[in-house]
């Protein structure tokens, strides 16, 4: 039987160390304009990598559930709906989709 407490402590440690390293060193480094640009691009590329293909695993059996959610969120965002409303509406629409599935 796996020791879950060991898993929790081990994961906590290996997650905290990478978080701590920049906290200590960032102040002492002076980034040039090229590195600044690189760092400014990270939010875009990190979000792209987090969304795709992870969004397709929202439901481990039905990949299209995540795709529907992604399309809904993107559409609402395009129409400038506020962030909080996008999150709530996407969840509500997925609940609706789930309850419609048995009808097909």
């Amino acid at each position, binding site marked *: 039987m796996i020791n*879950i407490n060991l898993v929790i402590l081990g994961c906590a440690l290996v997650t905290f160390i990478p*978080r701590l390293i920049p906290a200590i060193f960032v*102040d002492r480094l002076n980034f040039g304009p090229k590195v600044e640009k690189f760092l400014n691009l990270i939010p875009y590329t*990190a979000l792209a990598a987090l969304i795709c*293909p992870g969004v397709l695993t929202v439901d481990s059996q039905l990949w299209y559930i*995540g795709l529907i959610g992604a399309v809904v969120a993107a559409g609402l965002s395009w129409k400038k709906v506020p962030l909080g409303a996008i999150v709530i509406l996407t969840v509500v629409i997925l609940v609706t989709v789930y309850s419609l599935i048995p009808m097909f």
Partner: protein
Amino acid sequence: MLGYIPMGIGYAALALKAGFNPFQTVSFSILVYAGAGEIIGATMVANGATAIAIILTNFVVNLRYMVMNTAVFNKMEENSLLGNMLTAHLVTDETFALFSFEKESSMWFYVGLALSSWLSWILGAVIGVFVLDFLPVIVTNSFNISLYALFIAILVPAVKNNKRLGLLVVITAILNVILQFVVGNWSLILSTLIGALIGMYIVDDSFMEASND
């Protein structure tokens, strides 16, 4: 913090099913505080993986926080060694993304954002532990979309008016899918870094001012 309560409930559903007790479920969220890492960890426990395999996977998957914290502390004004060390634990995809695309760059703004996100994530797990028996599976499953909805809602307006940034996002997404077959869990951090390198050449510098609007 918006996506975190429903997502935290979704995580708690998964952890309890995997064999975590309620105390362990909440502790994991307090101490690790990494949505994807926790969900992968709980899934691996359920699938009978060894502790070492789970810890190694978490290390690889969460290595991106080193890159994200570098960006956060680089943007943050009036940061100090002590302040950085105290807030280091609080970086997540969400706080990093919201802070990056926000005009405000003061330390206190970040601390407020980061603390409320952390507490929301913990609160989500606590609520999950208590109410799970009453929630139908389709609702907890639907909660899993909330963080992705937030990511998409942050990204779409940011790339809407810049075709080259949009192209970079698509390239990085494809790269991540391909790299998963080659390097497995390393793909997330590798595609983020390689994508940003590609961006150095295909995106012109003007996006840095535009993204603050």
